[in-house]
């Protein structure tokens, strides 16, 4: 058939229409249809530590850290309208908090990680508070500057071991702990955030993103919800930051490295903004890729940025939305 005689017909699978209600429970087939992608991700992540060798297990940990950061970025950017260019700040604050608690107070890692997450999140929120009254660009700029300034300040005031950092922190009890802490964190954050954005709170946050004046006119304090959103994102980020400090038993200025800011953004854009699970998939693709290119040094950053740019220009919907569409729709050519 010549091109002008045919067109592509797309039909939603009926289960998609019905999946909102109880209908999806009506047969195994439909339940499988809905659960299969979710179970694939959960099962894959839970099984993978058993299948990988030691080196790739470490890569999995790194990918998990990036995935959680990416979800935090996605949540802030796509659901609250705050573009955070400094994910490294969360990693840094969380990591430093955990390291200091461990090195100076001698608390065990399983206690310092949650404590550091809360402390780091409080600090990040307080630091970001001044720019939350403004829209858009200001937040992006301040978050971009903060990790860089944080390193300057740590060097200038010779805080926390200055450029050397602190070595010899306690590491997690054994490799299985390392793997499963991050995998379970990832899954919890993913499903918790997905739930959060469909609750009332999430609705208000999306309202703030789309039309803050209207939300303000409804008598809701925008500032309060933005603080809440930043706190949630910072909590996840600081948690993995603290985890990272204990994973390598070391903290230093490289916790504020540009990689932690830019890779999550690239992962999110690649996976599809606003899908949360897309951010995870993006991180699980990009981190091993960058690991494979470790020998090339800074080429990695050029690579993420190129991928980021290509996706943002030519495939702005991202991988996740694309696959979701393919999964939920029948497609066939039809004669006009």
């Amino acid at each position: 058939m010549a091109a002008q005689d045919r067109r592509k017909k797309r039909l939603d699978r009926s289960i998609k229409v019905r999946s909102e209600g109880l209908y999806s429970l009506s047969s195994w087939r439909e339940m499988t249809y809905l659960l299969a992608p979710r179970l694939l991700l959960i099962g894959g992540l839970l099984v993978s530590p058993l299948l990988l060798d030691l080196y790739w297990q470490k890569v999995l940990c790194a990918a998990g850290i990036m995935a959680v950061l990416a979800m935090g970025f996605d949540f802030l950017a796509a659901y609250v309208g705050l573009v955070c260019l400094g994910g490294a700040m969360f990693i840094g604050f969380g990591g430093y908090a955990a390291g200091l608690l461990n090195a100076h107070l001698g608390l065990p890692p399983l206690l310092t990680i949650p404590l550091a997450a809360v402390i780091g999140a409080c600090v990040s929120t307080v630091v970001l508070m001044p720019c939350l009254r403004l829209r858009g660009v200001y937040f992006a700029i301040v978050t971009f500057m903060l990790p860089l300034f944080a390193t300057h300040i740590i060097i200038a005031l010779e805080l926390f071991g200055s450029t050397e950092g602190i070595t010899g922190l306690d590491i997690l009890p054994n490799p299985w702990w390392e793997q499963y802490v991050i995998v379970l964190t990832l899954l919890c954050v993913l499903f918790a955030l997905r739930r959060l954005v469909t609750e009332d709170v999430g609705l208000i946050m999306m309202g703030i993103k789309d039309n803050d004046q209207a939300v303000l006119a409804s008598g809701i304090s925008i500032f309060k919800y933005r603080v809440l959103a930043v706190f949630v994102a910072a909590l996840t980020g600081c948690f993995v930051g603290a985890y990272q400090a204990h994973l390598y038993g070391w903290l230093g200025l490289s916790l504020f490295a540009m990689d932690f800011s830019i890779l999550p953004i690239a992962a999110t854009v690649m996976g599809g903004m606003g899908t949360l699970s897309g951010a995870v998939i993006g991180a699980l693709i990009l981190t091993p890729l960058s690991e494979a290119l470790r020998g090339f040094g800074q080429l990695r950053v050029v690579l993420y940025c190129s991928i980021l740019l290509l996706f943002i220009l030519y495939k702005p919907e991202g991988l996740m939305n694309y696959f979701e569409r393919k999964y939920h729709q029948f497609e066939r050519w039809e004669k006009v």
Partner: protein
Amino acid sequence: METVLVYGLISSVTFVLMSVGFSLVYGVSRVPNFAHGSIYVLVGFVTWSCINDLHISYGLAIGISLVVASVVGMALYRLVLIRLRGMPTSEIIASFACGLIILEGLRLQGIGGFKGFIGPNYFLKPLFEGKIQVLGVFVDYQRLMVVATGAVLVAILWLFTHHTKIGLSLRAIAQDEQAALMLGINSNRAGMASMAIGSALAGLAAIIILPLGNITVEAGYHVLIYALAVCIIGGLGSWSGTVLASFLVGFAVKLSTFFFGALWESVVLVGTIILVLLLKPSGLLGRQKELEERV
């Protein structure tokens, strides 16, 4: 104390030079050009390459690198940013990515005979050697030239934006895009012009400031941060605010260096930003679209 006065003035003008390009682009096309710092460094390296690899005279090298800067700026707008107009998130991310590609690309080594600009060997020699005494403080000619260029540049920019057709159309776009469109001003062409001018300004800053030190890739990040800090303090998109904030920051930084030591510089910068954002969230003179920006 005279040291603080003289060097404060010099560093203030340095801040003006670094940030005026960013401020111009944001003020006109509302594009936060996160590739600003990388264009600064790129110009430094292009000038260096022209002089040391191609053996071109200094003046010609400066001309070539300024042209390169504005072409890169225009290309950024034409190829990337034009597709993303009106989506601030994407604009920020895309321009940031472009900037990182340029900056980190300059570090690459071993691909196609490209050697990567790493090491202390990369510096531009000052246009004029020698020192002079001002108010009892020794200042070299290059630093005096920074001040002179800054002053001339601000004057030229003021004349340009108030008395030439392109400048007036840029301001019109900044004030009310719809009305400007109705009067036949092509907003894309204005955006491209603003990116070209902004990038050339970044390049000019590089040529004037870089002879004071080495050319390093990290300078790109620092310039971007300083430009952003100054623009936030002065109010995004406000040019007089940018100049005022540069002086504020310049003197604050030099005073803190004088009293506490050089390392406190960034502490003072962060403190100033946070203080200004707390007291006057839209910046010192950020009157433009204040109501829409502030919630």
